[in-house]
Each structure stands twice: as C-alpha cells, then as structure tokens.
C-alpha cells in the first residue's frame, strides 16, 4: 500500500468518531470551567445529543458507503461490519446515559461531569475497536474502553464496594491486557506487520514453514486475553464482583457496550488473522481454532448458568447470566458460517434492548428497597404492575421464551449450530437454557407470588418509566417481527455474505 498524503483522505466518513471525540473534549472543558452553578444534568443531555448525532452520521455512512473505506493502511477502516457494531454501541450508550440521568440525581456519584464524558471516551474506544484492522489501533481502542470503564466502575468514590470492584477490575483487566499483548507480540513476530490482512497471509506462511506451535500459542493467548472483555470463561471471574460494585447504569454499559465491543474485536482479529492458517488439508481455524472457541463457549454457558442459580444478589445474578450470554454468542463462531454475522448482530440487538430494560428496573427497585437482594422484588406486581410486567418480558427474553426478541436471537444461534452439525454445542445450549429458566423465573416468582414489605405504589421516575415501557414494547415487537432487523442487517450490512465486507476480495 503506497503512502498517501494525510489530507487526501475523505475524512467525512470518520465523522461519528470525531463527534464523540469532540463532545468528550468540549464537555470535559465545560465541566472544568463552568463553575458550580451549572447543573451537571446539562452535560448529560449534551452527551446524549452527541451520541444521537454520531448515530445519524453512522446511518449516513451506511447509506453512502458501498465499499470499505480505509485510512492509513487500515489503521481505521470504515466498513459495514464496524458500522453495524457502532450502531449497537451508540444505541447502548444512549440508553446508558438516559438511565444515568435519573441515577445521578441522588448524590452517590459526586463527579457527575466526569461520569458522562468518561462514558463518551469509553464509547470512542469501542468504536475504534469495531472499525480498525491494525493491531496497534485495536490495542489502543481496547485500552481506551478499558481505562474509561475502570474509572466509571470506581466513581462511587465513598462506597467501599465500588472501590473494591474497580480495583479488582483494574487488576484482572491488566492481566488480560498483558496476555492479549503477549499474544499480539507473537503474531507480530511471525508476521512482521500489524495489519491483520497482511498478517493473515504471513501467518499462513509461518504455519507452513514449521512455526505451527507459535501460531497456536498466539491464538490461545489472544483468545484467552480477549475473553476478558466479553466475560467468557476462562476469564470471567471479574464479572460478578465488578457488576455488583459498579453504579447500575455502568453495569448495563459494561454488560452491553463493552461486551459487544469485545465481540467485534475478537471476531475480527481471530477470524482474519488465522483465516488462512492451514496444514495443507484443513484450515486450522475451522478445526482446532473453532474447537477451542467451542470449549470456551460451552464452559461459559455451563459456568454462567449454574453459578447464577445460587445467587441472591440480583446484579451478581445478571453478571452470571451475562457470562452465559457470552457463551451463546460464541456458538455461531464455531465454525463461522456466512450467516454468523447476521445472527450475532440480531442477538446483540435483542440483548441490548433487554439488558437496559432489566437494569433500569433493577436500578429503580434496588434504590427504593435499599438492597440488591432478589427478595427486594417481592410484591412488585402489586406496587407497580407495569414495571413487573416489563421486567417479566425482559426476563423471558433473556431466558429465550417465544414472542420476545431474545427467543429469535437464540433460535437463530441454535439453528446455526444445528446446520453446522455442532450437536454437542447445541445440546449444551438447550440444557443450560433450561437451567437458566430456574433463576429467571425466581425473580418473576418474587414479583407476583411473594408478599412485599409494603403495598405502597412504587415511585418510578418518569424518564425511567418511559424508557422501560418503550423497551418492553420493542422487545415484544421485534419478537413478533424479527425479520425487520435481520432483513435490514442483510440488506445494508451483509448483502454479499462477506461478514459486512470485512473479508477482502481475494479471500475464500
């Protein structure tokens, strides 16, 4: 690739990133210089405006760009794969900010300005992770997201629980980063370049030249290190503690945006880099590589769903449920087919709606009850029927019961596994899903069948009420018409079945 003048690029395709960067910078300055009289809600609304604006420009890019547009030898690459994930991140952050606007009204978090623009920098990191094809930028994006989320988790400065979970997050995140970087260093050593498209050919040569062992080792290091961000086994142990200690909107942010960003990075790096590695007859990726990820998926599903059974704290339970969801999401990757991209995007879309809805309800209930125990949900139906019904819809969707978006997400993944004749993984998916009904229905049982401590109507902030109502409606709507999303994804992001034109032309 020849060197181009930096001004000869059309930078307008990067507008979403620039908008987020600009808003984060300006809002941090505003927070610094606008004395105490400025309500920090303003910063929240402004950052929401920035996110929505960036979303508009991503939609513009989706409609304008037919081919991927690459900056500086794929340091940043605007393609459909990245755009689809970016829409998820932006939507997720918008919901997180909406929940935060209500959460921050009570003074647990003292640094409100920081809270909002750290969320924006985290979002920027996620967007870079989704739209880069170079190890250096991918690594920097990953760390931008990580560092922002470490701080966000610890922002309840006076709460020991929050401090502690932030510290655990930093330590386990640091170890995972080091493992990822170590894996990347082997990949670089074998390929001599950081561009993953060149890596993919050079690694194949290295594999043929007798360096298979190093190739496999690099794969294992990368898979384990990146499993951290998606909270999949074997790197899942941080999730329960961090989810419990973090402010609830941040928990939702971690559960959706950070996890989706991890998936975008994991899929792109592992798939492209190791795609061509083969032993002459079989591609490594579709044999051993897939098996490795399959074992990770199975372990996450089993650990997540069984450990969730014995949780009494609702946020810890959601963390284990999130580990299980990460397991489900790895299933279509074992081995990847042309349909995997659509399946993953739809599943993440459903998961986004449901998680934010569930965490919004959890936030209201735990605040009001002053406890995060599942018992706090007792009698919710009598106190606020709408909240109880909405929460039931979200939980049914997480469990994968029909007429919810979660059902079709899981159904597509399951059918994909069957089509690949991946019967063992499909079986584990079904069995662990059945196990998961127990703890999801545990909350539903509390809401409808157990008497609460009081019968007084639950005071739900208007914003949260609207958000929960809309999300519940959307969950049911897309459960009834999943085709609207899958067709949109197919038409705009994946028309030629090349994973959102992530694969270059000369692949196959």
């Amino acid at each position, binding site marked *: 690739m020849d060197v181009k003048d930096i001004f000869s690029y059309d930078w307008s395709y990067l507008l979403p990133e620039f908008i987020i960067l600009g808003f984060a910078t300006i809002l941090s300055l505003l927070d610094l210089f606008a004395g105490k009289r400025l309500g920090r809600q303003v910063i929240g609304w402004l950052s929401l405006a920035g996110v929505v604006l960036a979303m508009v420009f991503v939609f513009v890019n989706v409609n304008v760009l037919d081919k991927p547009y690459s900056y500086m030898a794929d340091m940043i690459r605007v393609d459909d794969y990245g755009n689809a994930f970016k829409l998820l991140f932006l939507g997720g952050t918008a919901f997180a900010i909406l929940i935060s606007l209500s959460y921050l009204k009570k003074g647990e978090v003292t640094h409100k300005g920081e809270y909002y623009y750290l969320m924006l920098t985290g979002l920027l990191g996620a967007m870079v992770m989704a739209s880069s094809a170079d*190890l*250096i930028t991918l*690594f*920097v994006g990953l*760390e931008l997201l*990580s*560092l922002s989320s*470490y*701080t966000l988790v*610890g922002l309840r*400065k*006076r*709460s*020991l*629980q929050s*401090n*502690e*979970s*932030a*510290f*655990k997050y*930093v*330590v386990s995140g*640091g*170890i995972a*980063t*080091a*493992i990822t*970087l*170590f894996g*990347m*260093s*082997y990949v*670089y*050593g*074998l*390929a*001599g*370049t*950081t561009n993953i498209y060149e890596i993919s050919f*050079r690694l194949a040569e*290295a594999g043929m*030249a007798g*360096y298979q062992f190093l190739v496999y080792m690099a794969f294992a290091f990368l898979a384990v290190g990146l499993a951290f961000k998606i909270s999949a086994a074997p790197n899942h142990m941080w999730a*329960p*503690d961090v989810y*419990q*200690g973090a402010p609830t909107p941040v928990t939702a942010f971690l559960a959706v945006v950070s996890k989706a960003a991890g998936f975008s990075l994991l899929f792109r790096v592992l798939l492209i880099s190791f795609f061509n590695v083969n032993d002459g007859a079989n591609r490594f990726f579709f044999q051993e590589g897939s098996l490795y990820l399959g074992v990770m998926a199975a372990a996450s599903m089993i650990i997540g769903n069984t450990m969730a059974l014995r949780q009494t*704290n609702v946020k*810890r339970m959601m963390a284990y449920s999130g580990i299980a969801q990460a397991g489900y999401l790895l299933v279509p990757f074992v081995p990847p087919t042309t349909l995997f991209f659509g399946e993953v995007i739809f599943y993440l879309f459903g998961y986004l709606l449901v998680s934010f809805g569930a965490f919004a309800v959890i936030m209201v209930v735990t605040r009001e009850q002053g406890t995060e125990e599942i018992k706090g949900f007792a009698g919710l139906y009598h106190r606020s029927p709408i909240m109880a019904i909405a929460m039931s819809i979200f939980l049914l969707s997480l469990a994968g019961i029909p007429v919810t978006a979660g059902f079709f997400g899981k159904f597509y993944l399951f059918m994909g596994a069957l089509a690949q004749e991946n019967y063992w993984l499909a079986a584990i998916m079904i069995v662990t899903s059945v196990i998961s009904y127990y703890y999801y229905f545990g909350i539903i049982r509390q809401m409808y069948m157990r008497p609460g401590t009081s019968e007084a109507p639950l005071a739900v902030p208007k914003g949260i009420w609207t958000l929960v109502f809309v999300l519940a409606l959307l969950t049911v709507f897309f459960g009834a018409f999943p085709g609207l999303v899958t067709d949109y994804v197919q038409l705009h992001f994946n028309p030629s079945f090349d994973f959102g034109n992530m694969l270059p032309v000369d692949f196959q």
Partner: protein
Amino acid sequence: MTVSITSYLMVALILFCVGLYGALTKRNAVVVLLSIELMLNAANINLIAFSKYGLYPAVAGQIFTLFSMTVAAAEVAVGLAILIALYRNKETVNVDEMNQMKR
C-alpha cells in the same frame, strides 16, 4: 557475538511468568500492579526482539512498543488512583482484605 532470538524470547517468557505469578499470589496491591507491569514489559521485549530478528523484521514492532508503554503508564495511573480511593475508605493495601462482596 550475536544473541539469538531464542534468548530474548526466553527472557520475555520468564518475565511474563514471573509477572503472572506475582499478580496472582502477592498480597500487597502495589506489588500486584507492579507484576502486571512486568507482564506488559515482557510483551514489549518480545516486540522489540521480533522487530529485529523476527521472520519479517520491520520497525512496526518498535512503534507498537511505544504505544504499549504509554498505555501501560496510563493503566497503572488509573490503578493507583483507584487504590488510593480504596485506601481512603479502608486503610489497607492488602488484597486479602478486599472481600466485601460475597461469593
């Protein structure tokens, strides 16, 4: 006399293992953060060694190292800040005592 690539890789691997061992077993939170730095620097040694003796020697490895050092510095800054916040609430740097949350 030139040193072969194997020696560099061995040093890096040993450093990585020492770091991982330290991060997983040490009680003092500051030492845990230090051990993580060791692991990151092990990766840096790898990158530098590969940028001269790798299969395709190229300068990209050294650039990567600059980025990873910067990131490591930022990470330890955040880690220490969080540790100080923790220390203010509970006067300890012993990771065994950070057990507020139940299993």
